[in-house]
Every structure is written in C-alpha cells, then in structure tokens.
C-alpha cells in the first residue's frame, strides 16, 4: 500500500473529470420551449384533434395522413368533432401554424429531432411570396 496517495489522487482526479459536465452545467438546464400560436390558430381554438393528442401523437397523425393521401388518394380527414379537413401538411397544418420557426422548430430543436419534412414540403406557404 505504499502507492496509496497516488491511487487516491488519481481516483479523485478521475471522478472530478468524469463528473465535470454535471456540476459545470448545474442549474443551467434550458427550459422546455412553449410553442407559439399564431392569431389564426388561437382563433380556431381546436386543432384537428385535442391538444394533448396533437402534442403527443402529431407525428403518427402526419404519418397516417401521408400514407392515406399518397398511397390511397383519400384526402379528407373527418375529426372526432365532425369537422372536415384536407390532409395536407403545407396547406392545412401550416395554414394555421404559419410560424414554423416558433411553432415547430423550437420544440424539435429542444428535443434534438430533425424531421426531414421540409426538404420537400414548402415550409412557410404564407410567409414567402
């Protein structure tokens, strides 16, 4: 045990380095972003489904829409409330949520997900002319 002091010092240095990111960033966690609603979205009050459903399942909903429109040609979605919608990301979703940067991107960036919708779909039908 004559190397005890070296071993202990080494272990302490290792622990400090290994836990560095945790204590260095302590208390600096970025708050979860809140999606911003446009005036039009606020006025509409309801989306195609309930807010909780849209928060949790919008990707599944979009996936369903995509398959239905592209592969079967069925383009009308009758929501549980009886309202009819045309299933279109650019023309229906982004018609209300025309603020992609504040509505979509903030949460996607926070959650570090990179959906490739916008490689093809026009991201902001209302903004650009």
């Amino acid at each position: 045990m004559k190397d005890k002091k070296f071993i202990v010092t080494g272990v302490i240095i290792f622990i400090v380095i290994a836990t560095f990111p945790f204590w260095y960033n302590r208390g600096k966690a970025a708050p979860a972003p809140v999606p911003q609603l446009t005036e039009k979205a606020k006025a509409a009050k309801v989306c195609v489904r309930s807010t909780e459903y849209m928060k949790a399942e919008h990707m599944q909903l979009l996936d369903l829409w995509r398959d239905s429109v592209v592969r079967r040609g069925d383009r009308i979605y009758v929501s549980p409330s009886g309202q009819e919608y045309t299933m279109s990301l650019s023309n229906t979703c982004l018609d209300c949520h025309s603020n992609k940067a504040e509505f979509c991107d903030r949460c996607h960036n926070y959650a570090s997900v990179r959906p490739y919708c916008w490689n093809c779909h026009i991201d902001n039908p209302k903004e650009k002319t």
Partner: protein
Amino acid sequence: MDSSRRRVLQLLGLSSLALTAKPVFNAFAKEQAHAEKTEPVIKESEKALKAKQWAMVIDTREFHSEEDLKPLIAVCDKIHNVPHLANKRHEIKWIWGAPYHNTFPDKAGRFLSEEVEHKPFLVLCNHCENPPCVRACPTKATFKRESDGIVLMDFHRCIGCRFCMAACPFGARSFNYRDPRPFIVKIDKNFPTRMKGVVEKCNFCSERLAVGQLPACVEAAEGKLHFGDLYDPESEVRELIKTNYTIRRKQQLGTEPSVYYIV
C-alpha cells in the same frame, strides 16, 4: 384453520397477482376517459374523379411544332415545381417533346413523311397497365394505384436506387442528381418540391383528379388531349380509340401503355 406451507404460498401468489392487476385496470380506465368520443374518419373527396384505368389520347395531328407543346409543358412544370436544369444529364422531365424515331422506334420507316420526321411528339409517363418500374422498385416507392391505375411515386419511400429508371422503356423517369429547389423558376406553394436523391415522373395529376379537375396538360391543350376511363365503353377516350387509328409506344414490350396516339 389449516395453514400448511402450500396454502401460504398460494395466498402469497394470489395477493401479488391482485397487486399487479390494479395498475393495469387504472391504465385502462385512464385510456377510456381520455379517448375522444368518436373515431376520426378518413375518406375521399366527393368531388374526386374516378376511373378503373385512366388513359390519355393524344391527337398528334393537332401538334405541329415545339411551339404547340410549350404551353402544356410549361403548365405542368409550373404546378409541379419541376426544376429547369441546364445540364442535359441532370434534366428533370415530366412531359416533353421527342422526335418520331425516339417516340416510336419500332414504327420508324426508312422514308418518313417530312412532317412526321421533323415534328415533336408529346411524351410522358404511359401509366402502363403492366408497369415494369413497379416490379423493379425494391421499396414499393413506386406503385400502381389499385383504385384508378395511375402509376404513382411515394417520394417519402424512394431511396434513389434508379432501378425504375433502368426498367422503364420510355425514359419517363428523372433522377434528382442535385437539390432541385434552386432551379425551380417559381415555387408553387400548393405542391411539394422533391429533394436530392429521389426519382420523379408524371403523376397524371392525381392531386388534381382528387379535387375533380382534369390534368393540367389536358386542360391547357384545349381539346387536343383527351382524358378518361379506358374501361368505360362510353368514355371519350374509348370513343376516340374506336373511331381513329391509334398507336402506342413500344407496344411489343407488353407493358400496355395507357397513352394512345392518333396519327
């Protein structure tokens, strides 16, 4: 009371089962409470045009020069965000003009009429009844739609392998070697663009048929193109095929093209 070892073990087992049952029931109850009252319904628009197999009849007697084809090609490019790339090898084509000997290589004689030899013929995806591109696609990105016979592309699924381009005997498919967006003259916001690495082609304006409109080229041609159901004996296209001599491209290959040419 008989409290044998076996009895105690049985009781323990039963009570642990009861303990696990409660959270399960709770989860079910929560699900029930959350579920919206009715299920959403997905349906077709009432305005949608329907057919067993869409077909086109092109009256080539009405087209004499490149100028006659131009408005048709322009309207298609405009509404589908088809890019204009200067490099021939990167060109994207949905509908275009080709000389007779390329359009009907099997029917090109030695001494053709001057007019036929020099005028362009309108060519596009033939929406074959037996499409080789569909068989070649490893991801089912391209498929023949059961409901109306259109050969469609699901760009989301296309992996860009280009087997379909090799399989198509009509060269109706183009590959995006580059990001097409900078080359689109004016982006139409109602239709998506494509991205680098996918194949694209004419879709018989399925997005227009779905809302009760005829394909854009047919509309722009003002009666020189005819569109209808091949399997409806009363349809305009059937009437034209019945009363005129029509040919199809590379018919001997057996792909059964749905685009007919009156010559």
